[in-house]
């Protein structure tokens, strides 16, 4: 299965008639790294929420790792989520647990055998370069370190796809860079990554694919530039 995510004319409307996404279609392949950009409220978070089924599309189809939103049952949601990792701007760590316990929690609550928990936690802590902070609680860690713990937690179940919603939004430039470097490393190891950000400097520092949203519409996809000459940046000349 080479397609991780496929959106087919996906529209998402919220109860008060706000249209967050308007007929969005795109595809993300296995092992790919893509940025979702656009101003706040453009629909970046909505796309991520539809992928990890925090929300449902109003119309259209969202297909994630072979599972279509059309046939998805509530029972299948946890199964799907175990194949995904998600990180957020606000880290979402449990404040009363250590870094290691926060990571172990993700394994425990998905029923991993206890004997496999410690080695896995250690492995991902090493991967995010936080081995010596294993026993620190979130408030004892810097923002960048907290995000690393969150990433480690997202990685511990060996996801095929990592979703990151403004993971650098709360970080200074240096920490942001190092988080991006970490994500690139993870991507090199084979995990597909979809990262929402409005930090264009960060996006420009890489050559990864960029999907740009505006008012819920997908207005730019860098991967189509070569094959589809009509793709334009907003403000550019429409075809």
């Amino acid at each position: 299965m080479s397609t991780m995510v496929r959106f087919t004319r996906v529209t998402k409307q919220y109860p008060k008639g706000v249209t967050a996404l308007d007929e969005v279609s795109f595809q993300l392949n296995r092992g790919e790294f893509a940025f979702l950009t656009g101003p706040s409220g453009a629909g970046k978070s909505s796309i991520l929420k539809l992928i990890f089924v925090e929300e449902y599309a109003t119309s259209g189809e969202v297909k994630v790792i072979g599972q279509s939103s059309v046939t998805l049952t509530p029972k299948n949601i946890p199964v799907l989520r175990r194949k995904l990792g998600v990180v957020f701007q606000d880290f979402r760590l449990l404040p009363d647990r250590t870094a290691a316990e926060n990571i172990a929690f993700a394994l425990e609550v998905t029923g991993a055998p206890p004997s496999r928990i410690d080695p896995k936690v250690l492995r991902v802590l090493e991967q995010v370069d936080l081995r010596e902070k294993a026993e620190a609680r979130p408030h004892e860690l810097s923002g960048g370190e907290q995000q690393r713990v969150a990433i480690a937690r997202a990685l511990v179940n060996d996801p095929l796809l990592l979703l990151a919603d403004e993971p650098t939004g709360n970080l200074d430039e240096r920490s942001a860079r190092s988080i991006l470097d970490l994500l690139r490393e993870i991507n090199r190891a084979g995990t597909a990554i979809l990262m929402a950000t409005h930090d264009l400097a960060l996006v420009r520092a890489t050559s990864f694919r960029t999907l740009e949203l505006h008012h819920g519409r997908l207005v730019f996809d860098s991967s189509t530039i070569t094959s589809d000459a009509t793709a334009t940046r907003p403000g550019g000349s429409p075809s």
Partner: protein
Amino acid sequence: MRLALREALLAFRRAPMLSVLSITTIAFSLFAFDLFGLVALNLRSALRQVESRVEIRAFVAEGTRADAASAAVGDVQAFPEVERVTLVSETEALDRARRELGEFEDVFESGILPASIEVRLREGFRAPDQVRAVAERLAQYDFIDDIRYGEEWVEKLYRLRTIATFVGIALGTTFALVSIIIIGSTIRMAVLARAREIQVMRLVGATRGFIRAPFLIEGLLKGLLGGVIALGLSFVTYAALERLVIQAEFFGFGHSILGLLAGALIGFLGSAYSVDRHLRRVA
């Protein structure tokens, strides 16, 4: 399951004040419930005692042959409703009257009191209609003169019991509902206090059952603990009343266990309600 239990116990340690508060609340609402149960229990046993005195007395006409009366006693004894039948002869009636009303001993002359057939009904056959039915059958013997069974008295007793039962059920249900709501809201506080954990659990793909389990166990334990405290408080109240005011009865073993199970069930339901509501809202 072990993890769920650990998380449930951890919840007590993480939020001791909240736990104490919810257990106390549960204990007091169950205490109110138990107190009412005690009143109902004692009312019922008092009624049962009074009821056991319900008796049909059929007076035998003068000059009836003894063997006819004895044969009737045999027949009546065979009625399924009947516990015991006694034939009280004229002499026995006189003896009894003299014994019971000693000071008027001389007033009674032989032959003044009629012989009678006394019928006691089995438990469960003492309702007014049933008593009347047996009385009517007795009246069919032509040597029976008159029948007394305290008609109005039996009916009043029964009405009282019916009212007590209905009031008991209504109040009991109300208290149970109030308990469920109270437990529901204390568990809700616990759920909200752990909203972050629930969020993370959902995010990493924990199943719904897995997320609910620690809360359900927590609710169950709180309900059970509240039930134990309530039962203790009720016992103290009962003991004080027993000593100072009136002889009373306490819950038997079965009723006590039932009370504890009710506490656990209420805790379970209250927390199931809260967790599901929360999960529905965030999902």
